[in-house]
């Protein structure tokens, strides 16, 4: 088990290094364009040369890369061009905001989706299963930009119940969190539900469940004690994947509701070619992706002995 964890961890680090190299190649191989982006299109050639020299851009490529990587590891991401402050000062609060949004979504999605999935999977083909399955397929197939408009039309413009944007300009407000979370939940719960349902129904077909039912155990005990334990392994991985999606997949929602989160920041950085911010955002996104994947793998192995000893 320990060797497995170490190996997974090593893969994770390797992935990050490869991505960082690609990122660096894409954004910083052409030093002249870096200087233009930092100093603006109206800067003179002379100013750019001075800047390049002062910031070590005339060094060989590999030295620049390792210096950059070294700075990155200790959290020095450079200065944002658009915000005119160190990248960290913008990045961490925004990441925190998205964390809040993601957490709130998860708090709703996980119990809701697991309950519905288990209910549907208990008896495949039943009326309840059909209702839940069709319902979740419908909500999942409505893209966020459509459901955001729809929900805003109803709750903001028609009912006048909820605030229309979530910029949190006056400090944190639970009220402003409702609509973005609603959109994310609507889009996401169906998928997790379907996965749970598939896993549950598979378990329900197995012999040991049949045996448990036949030996006269109460149905409740069969489900809670025997079925759930195995049925929840697959959803665990799916849920871990949702964390990754919640980080970079929320761009649409954050843009629509003017929520000051990581997704909106990534979009803003790209639109304004704020290269140091793009680099930091990309690396954070990649880190979260590989980290959640690693946790999912390790967790899955722990939960499922068949894989552990394979």
């Amino acid at each position, binding site marked *: 088990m320990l060797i497995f964890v170490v190996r997974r961890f090593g893969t994770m680090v390797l992935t990050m290094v490869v991505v960082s190299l690609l990122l660096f190649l894409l954004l910083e191989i052409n030093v002249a364009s870096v200087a233009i982006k930092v100093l603006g299109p109206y800067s003179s050639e002379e100013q750019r040369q001075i800047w390049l020299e002062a910031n070590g851009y005339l060094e060989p490529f590999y030295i620049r890369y390792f210096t950059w990587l070294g700075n990155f590891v200790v959290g020095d991401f450079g200065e944002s061009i658009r915000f005119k402050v160190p990248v960290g000062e913008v990045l961490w609060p925004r990441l925190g905001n998205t964390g809040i949004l993601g957490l709130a979504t998860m708090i709703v999605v996980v119990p809701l989706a697991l309950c519905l999935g288990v209910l549907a999977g208990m008896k495949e083909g039943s009326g309840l299963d059909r209702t839940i399955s069709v319902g979740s397929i419908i909500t999942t197939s409505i893209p966020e930009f459509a459901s955001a408009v729809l929900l805003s039309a109803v709750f903001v413009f028609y009912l006048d119940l909820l605030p*229309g944007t979530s910029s949190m300009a006056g400090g944190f407000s639970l009220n402003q969190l409702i609509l973005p979370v609603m959109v994310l939940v609507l889009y996401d719960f169906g998928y997790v539900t379907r996965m749970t349902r598939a896993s549950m129904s598979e378990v329900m077909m197995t012999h040991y469940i049949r045996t448990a039912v036949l030996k006269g155990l109460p149905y409740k005990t069969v489900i809670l004690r025997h079925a759930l334990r195995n049925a929840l392994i697959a959803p665990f991985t799916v849920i871990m994947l949702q964390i990754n999606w919640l980080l970079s997949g929320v761009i649409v929602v954050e843009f629509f509701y003017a929520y000051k989160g990581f997704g909106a920041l990534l979009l803003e950085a790209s639109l304004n070619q704020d290269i140091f911010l793009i680099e930091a955002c990309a690396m954070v996104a990649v880190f979260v992706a590989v980290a959640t994947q690693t946790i999912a793998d390790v967790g899955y192995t722990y939960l499922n002995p068949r894989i552990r000893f394979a």
Partner: protein
Amino acid sequence: MKKVLNDETGKRVHPYVPELCEQLRKGDLDRREFLRTATLLGVSTAAAYSMAGKILGEPVTKRAVAAETPKMGGTLRWGMQVQEMTDPSKFDWVEKSNVARGIVEYLCRTGSDNITRPYLAEGWEASDDLKTWTFKLRQGVKWSNGDDFGADDVVANFKRWLDPKTGSSNIGLFAAMVEEVDTGKKDDKGNPVMGKRMTEGAFDKVNAHTVKLHLNSPVLSMPENLYNYPTAIVHRNFDADGADLTKNPIGTGPFELVENKVGERAVLRKKQGYWGDEVYLDEIQYIDLGEDRAAWLAAIASKQVDGIYQFDVNQLDMADRLPGTVVHTAVTAQTAIARMQMDKEPFTDIRVRQAVQACMDHQKLLDLAYRGKGAPGEDHHVAPIHPEYFKLPMQKQDHAKAKKLLADAGHPNGITLKIDVGSTSGKWELDAMQAFKEQCAPGGINLELNVMPSSQYWEIWDKTPFGFTSWTHRPLGVMVLNLGYRSGVPWNESHYNNPAFDKALDEASAILDVNERRKKMEQVESILQNDAVALQPLWRAVFTATNDKVKGYQMHPTLYHQFQKVWMA
């Protein structure tokens, strides 16, 4: 002997003022234009209103305003993008100037009625030839650091603006104070590289509160130029203090900067001891609602903000229906132009440019892209609401002419052109260009649209050979022509270079009499229209919304924020 006129207070009156009165009497001039020109020539606003009243037989007192007593205090929350705000002379977004406008002030102020009034300058006089302008500065104005405001500040600002190293667009605006010099360098072809520098003796400080400007050529619009948004007056030590208004927000204005967090919010708080009338608001908060204008309306619908920067024409129906929300409209000279750089292939050939021009049906684009709210453009960037506007014959769409021009230019099988569209002033830009693409096709032009985000467009707006650029409103036609079409000025994005045009524009800019100037504008407009460097589908109206608690707000055609008289019910 030259007659010297004085008003009741003994102040000298510009000799052109009686002529103005005569024109108003005869009906050659409307009331608004009379007020505008008379105040520009140094007549006080009150005196100008009184003169107009006497001539037109109207009561001097304006009609009674609804009897609501303004309330002190309150916070105004306004939805607008919050950007970096370093150097006012380099502002290229009105949004930046709106935050700065509470902190730093201008010499003159053009109101939402298009009339320019004294501000930090308490008055001005122009010489008869309009080449010498004397600005008397207000006394007793203090900077927020305790220094006295005076002529030194104004002189320091002019020096910064007219220094090419500063990189301010003001150098084009005040072209009459700048001269061309040989930099001593040669370009690749061996031609001398010309640079610009401030004319020797372009201004002098008469005393601590008087500044005289000496121009190379007559300019009528000096006071209006001094309210163009990058001309805010900063403290004389602005450069020495680090040239950063955010870090060192010293100003004469009624508010002080509490915070400016780019992309999030900016907060201005009422300052004690402001020199002017006390402002009603305690605080102004600018809240960044991102780039999605649907979110802006949603924010005002749910009362999260009290006003928004603007909304699009296609949101008009929705805004009209929002309860508790007031829609404001301003007729403007705002526009966007599809401009072609005349020094880049294939636009070096005037026939190609004219072929593109011949394909455009302006009225149709106005109807399709802007629901007819505004006026059709005429490819010369002078709007019907500009006082000097001369009506040229209507242009007609002519596909046969376009095909012939293209064939003559060596493209008998048509041509493919790519235009960059940044939609910097809203989605209507893309709608207009999509419709224009269809209009181009029968003329043998395959117009490809390169759609890009607005902030990215501003990186290339003056570099791309063919781009669709939005231009804000300016009160006079000659102002925008001087900024954008005179040879060699920084904002000349089409690289337009026509000495005949420059000369005609110089002449027009020097004529005080609006009727005479209008005659000259026929030539200016025709040259620009025939050279077909800037195709202009339409002039657009602009819209914004406030909730009904906001009182005393008048929308400015340039979207400038003037919140001095705004109060919250």
